[in-house]
């Protein structure tokens, strides 16, 4: 079926930053997550928890609070004292507004979703009115003596509870005055903590306030009388969760066997090693040359890198932050590499959501956050802007996935919700649009020769669309008719990369975080009764049985968690793994807890 040499790479030393706060939107079933590096991500819980959108982080922005308001508007506030609203269509920050209360620790939208409340360092609670395109300061509540760390509205919207250091206040929203002040006991079981920080409050409709604090207590209060009803001690454990980002952080140069790793503030370029040995399945081959760390490229400024790419020929590296686009030319002389920045980038190439080089490395495709797609011609050490595909009138949706055909004629671009647009690069016009599907696209690629566009969605469906014919291929229709194997649909991580074998047109190579799969379109599809994944190689079964049980999906689960896998040449694969143990080893001690044994 297929034998490959696999470059198994584990030196991508990526650690996702910690999650600071989450906000769930009930209506759209989406979860907004902010990380310690200021990144805000939006996960679509209906679409297999797929990370739909992300807003790159910034060093000076420490997001402390996130909340959704009416009309699925997302706000965040942080220690820089600003309230920000995110544009979920254009994927940028709509505006940032200083609340003038020092660092903001907490934020809550009113039950109606029309008002926003922030709790500040200086002890003030500020009420903002949410207007259709902005927010407007309305008034201050009675100033408290220390920072407001948590806020909660009464479901009726008439009162709020504010957790501070050592006490909880209840405010009347109409008058803005504090109705009650409930002192939280610093001690528990005789152990005196220095300060009791009320990290969270919840206001129930019957007037009960529930607080959680740094002494590890969960307490129930009666907001009408301001008295403590019940107190429970729970564990004083921190909870954090980790998730590896779905978005692509790795790109590879097939020709020079290079890997480019993207971190928040730098890029790393590695050259893969080589071997002359051969072996049988499962063997580890002796290396004749080890992998080299060629380059460490640091960004300037506080902004995180949004995306990066290395050209297939290995002589260009492009990356982008929120405000700047960088293009570098690499020169190889034996073992030395020289790096030259291409200066004078045009103004429209400011912030890219996705960068892609054509197969022959002569063209650069950039998806900007205004929804435009730029095509840049690269030749020698210079570049020329060829064309910009403007977004369809009326839409501002940003494109975040790009795919180009190996012959360089077709460019496919996908946003977060609408369908995939296919552009004709030669004629510089929109060729067709693949019909929109309910679930976001997680990966796509265009096959050589046939120019079939293979699209994977977050609900684990895979489609094959013929670009020249502007219709789904027969194989794709057959698959849809028969349906995927139930175990295939039950996988919980999205397909993040699709590639093709240059010599085997019937093969589609794709992978998610836990498996690598070759779909052989010439073989029958598995039905729910067949074994989808068989970890054991066939032994001495007769050819007949083997042929009868063989099906289109050839799966390998050896490499996990798999961040990236691509075909370098006909017989060589590169797999980038990020072992969870390595990430766990870098987490602060309370997160990993040994449960049994001593």
């Amino acid at each position: 079926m297929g034998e490959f040499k696999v470059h198994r790479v584990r030196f991508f030393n990526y650690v996702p930053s910690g999650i600071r706060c989450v906000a769930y939107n009930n209506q759209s079933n989406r979860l907004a997550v902010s990380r310690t590096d200021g990144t805000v991500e939006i996960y679509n819980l209906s679409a297999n928890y797929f990370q739909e959108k992300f807003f790159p982080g910034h060093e000076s922005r420490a997001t402390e609070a996130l909340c959704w308001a009416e009309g699925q508007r997302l706000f965040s506030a942080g220690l820089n004292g600003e309230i920000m609203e995110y544009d979920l269509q254009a994927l940028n920050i709509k505006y940032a507004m200083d609340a003038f209360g020092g660092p903001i620790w907490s934020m809550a939208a009113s039950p109606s979703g029309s008002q926003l409340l922030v709790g500040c360092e200086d002890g003030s609670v500020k009420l903002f009115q949410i207007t259709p395109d902005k927010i407007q300061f309305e008034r201050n509540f009675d100033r408290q003596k220390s920072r407001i760390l948590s806020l909660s509205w009464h479901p009726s919207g008439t009162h709020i509870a504010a957790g501070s250091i050592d006490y909880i206040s209840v405010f009347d929203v109409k008058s803005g005055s504090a109705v009650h002040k409930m002192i939280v006991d610093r001690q528990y079981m005789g152990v005196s903590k220095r300060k009791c920080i009320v990290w969270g409050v919840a206001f129930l409709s019957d007037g009960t306030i529930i607080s959680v604090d740094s002494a590890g207590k969960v307490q129930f209060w009666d907001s009408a009388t301001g008295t403590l009803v019940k107190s429970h001690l729970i564990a004083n454990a921190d909870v954090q969760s980790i998730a590896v980002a779905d978005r692509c952080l790795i790109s590879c140069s097939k020709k020079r066997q290079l890997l480019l790793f993207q971190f928040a503030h730098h890029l790393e370029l590695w050259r893969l090693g080589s071997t002359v040995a051969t072996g049988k399945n499962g063997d580890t081959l002796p290396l004749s040359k080890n992998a080299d760390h060629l380059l460490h490229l640091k960004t300037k400024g506080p902004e995180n890198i949004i995306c990066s790419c290395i050209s297939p020929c290995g002589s260009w590296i492009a990356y982008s932050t929120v405000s700047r686009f960088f293009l570098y030319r690499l020169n190889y002389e034996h073992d030395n590499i020289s790096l030259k920045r291409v200066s004078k980038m045009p103004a429209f190439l400011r912030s890219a959501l996705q960068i892609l080089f054509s197969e022959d490395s002569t063209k650069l495709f950039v998806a900007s956050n205004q929804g435009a797609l730029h095509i840049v011609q690269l030749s020698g050490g210079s570049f020329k802007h060829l064309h910009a595909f403007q977004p369809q009138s009326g839409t501002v949706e940003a494109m975040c996935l790009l795919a180009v055909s190996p012959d360089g004629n077709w460019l496919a671009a996908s946003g977060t919700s609408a369908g995939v647009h296919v552009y004709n690069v030669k004629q510089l016009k929109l060729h067709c649009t693949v019909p929109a599907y309910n679930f976001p696209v997680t990966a796509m690629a265009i096959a050589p020769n046939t120019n079939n566009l293979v699209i994977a969605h977050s609900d684990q469906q895979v489609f094959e669309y013929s670009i020249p014919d502007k219709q789904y291929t027969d194989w794709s229709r057959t698959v849809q008719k028969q349906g995927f194997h139930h175990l295939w649909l039950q996988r919980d991580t999205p397909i993040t990369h699709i590639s093709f074998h240059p010599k085997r047109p019937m093969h589609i190579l794709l992978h998610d975080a836990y498996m690598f799969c070759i779909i052989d379109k010439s073989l029958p599809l598995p039905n729910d009764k067949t074994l989808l994944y068989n970890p054991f190689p066939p032994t001495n079964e007769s050819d007949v049985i083997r042929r009868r049980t063989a099906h289109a999906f050839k799966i390998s689960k050896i490499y996990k968690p798999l961040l990236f896998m691509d075909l370098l040449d006909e017989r060589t694969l590169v797999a980038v793994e990020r072992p969870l143990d390595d990430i766990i080893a870098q987490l602060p001690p309370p997160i990993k807890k040994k449960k049994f044994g001593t």
Partner: protein
Amino acid sequence: MAALEEEFTLSSVVLSAGPEGLLGVEQSDKTDQFLVTDSGRTVILYKVSDQKPLGSWSVKQGQIITCPAVCNFQTGEYVVVHDNKVLRIWNNEDVNLDKVFKATLSAEVYRILSVQGTEPLVLFKEGAVRGLEALLADPQQKIETVISDEEVIKWTKFFVVFRHPVLIFITEKHGNYFAYVQMFNSRILTKYTLLLGQDENSVIKSFTASVDRKFISLMSLSSDGCIYETLIPIRPADPEKNQSLVKSLLLKAVVSGNARNGVALTALDQDHVAVLGSPLAASKECLSVWNIKFQTLQTSKELPQGTSGQLWYYGEHLFMLHGKSLTVIPYKCEVSSLAGALGKLKHSQDPGTHVVSHFVNWETPQGCGLGFQNSEQSRRILRRRKIEVSLQPEVPPSKQLLSTIMKDSEKHIEVEVRKFLALKQTPDFHTVIGDTVTGLLESLCPDLMEIALKKKDVQLLQLCLQQFPDIPESVTCACLKIFLSIGDDSLQETDVNMESVFDYSINSVHDEKMEEQTEILQNGFNPEEDKCNNCDQELNKKPQDETKESTSCPVVQKRAALLNAILHSAYSETFLLPHLKDIPAQHITLFLKYLYFLYLKCSENATMTLPGIHPPTLNQIMDWICLLLDANFTVVVMMPEAKRLLINLYKLVKSQISVYSELNKIEVSFRELQKLNQEKNNRGLYSIEVLELF
């Protein structure tokens, strides 16, 4: 078990400790705060939990503190003496010691002593003692001389015994030691000569004392490295007479006598002392905790940076100067128990007992019967009985009761249940009760078991034990008493549920073979290798039939079924233990024998389970053995007929410990293997491998 916890340093501030170390560490009126007086000019108040100083006060340049600062617990003020005669009193708000209250005394102060609950005492170098208040009333009052010339106070301690302050101080003159005990209220001063025994050359290096009702137990660490104890009566027989006291050896050679560094001794509690010093002349200094009752070393901690040979102990903290910084080592002594030693001390409910929903579904009592009990047999029996019941033409009282329970008020139900229980036992009585109690909680009908206990209705009790998840431990224990004491003949008449009992007599032939096997290999361990050779010999001398006894069930089957119900019931150790103490010793022995028998049966197969449908688990058996022994050890150990059993249990425990220690050893090898395995899987950061997809 006494244990030293992880040490911590109080602050990075280097204390100006002289060659003799610090002047002292004293308690303040707040539990967590301590006054540290260095050997120079400074007093620092530390908060131990925060590991940082709260305040610091110094006397002027040129002055020197001569007596460690103490806290006056009655006023919350601090008292210190500098330049031998100048007394200063201040509190937390004061900044400068130069500006605080000052009193110049007429004699030199040895130490100010302060304990909770009484005013501080001032001990002068000449041996006179004054209360602080009385002294402050007239600071220049004349201070008499108590001790003779060239006699020097070496050590002192202040106790409150039954609200009477008692002061003891030790003096030395030309190598002779004297103890003075001053009853402060009665102003009686008694002088004792401490006899050093044969070794006249030994010098006492450190003292500590603890006190009980009648005696002050003075412990001294001598230069020969041994700890001696001297008992000093608090109320002397004849205070006028000079009396001699003999010391007795308590612990031998705990530290090296001729070590260069200082040694120190502190009593931690009744049974434990902490010793600071080098165990061998050349080795590094150690803090060790000794159990003086068993004369064993409990724990020890190396202090590589050296100490000043001083040790203070307050509350749960040991203070010492380690290197240049003041170090605190928390000391904990937890009560140990056999269950704890076996690692079976329980904190949560036995997972073996099933938790029943607190909701009673009255709609389906007939259909479900004992439905949630996961055995087919009981269901079958009940169903059969129910058929019999329904065959009866008229509505039996039990049916009426059931219908009453299903629809009536709580009050009425109670009345009806009482009425029903008062009735003569009907054949379907227990079936009805079974139906009724299914899904009920004991707390919902507290009288039911009470009545059953009174009537000694073991069948009902068994049913209740099986069904109620919330029986109070006292009731469980009362059931146990009845189950153990009820006569075999009266048991014959009852119809107890036998599903938890397996007929052990069936495979008696097989048994014998097994028995031999258990003798040789108890759970993989060979008791022959046991160090307890003498008890083995004793055991071997016993006639064969007694060995036989341990492998045949010591109780009749019905009683076994009842006892199994007890084993299955839920309990909390703390509440059960006191009740277990009330059970007569013969019954305890019988139960232990039965449990031991079950254990032997368990260890016969690899899965360590008993045959049968719902047998007691090994954990339940072991827990109950531990419980019974913990509750009644002193009683059982005195009984001659329990001796053999105890030896067997002792061997059992020992074999278990050996097995576990062997397992621990194996674990190390396994870990290495696992590491190798991981290395194989984890081929470093980069590799090229061959993958073939089929």
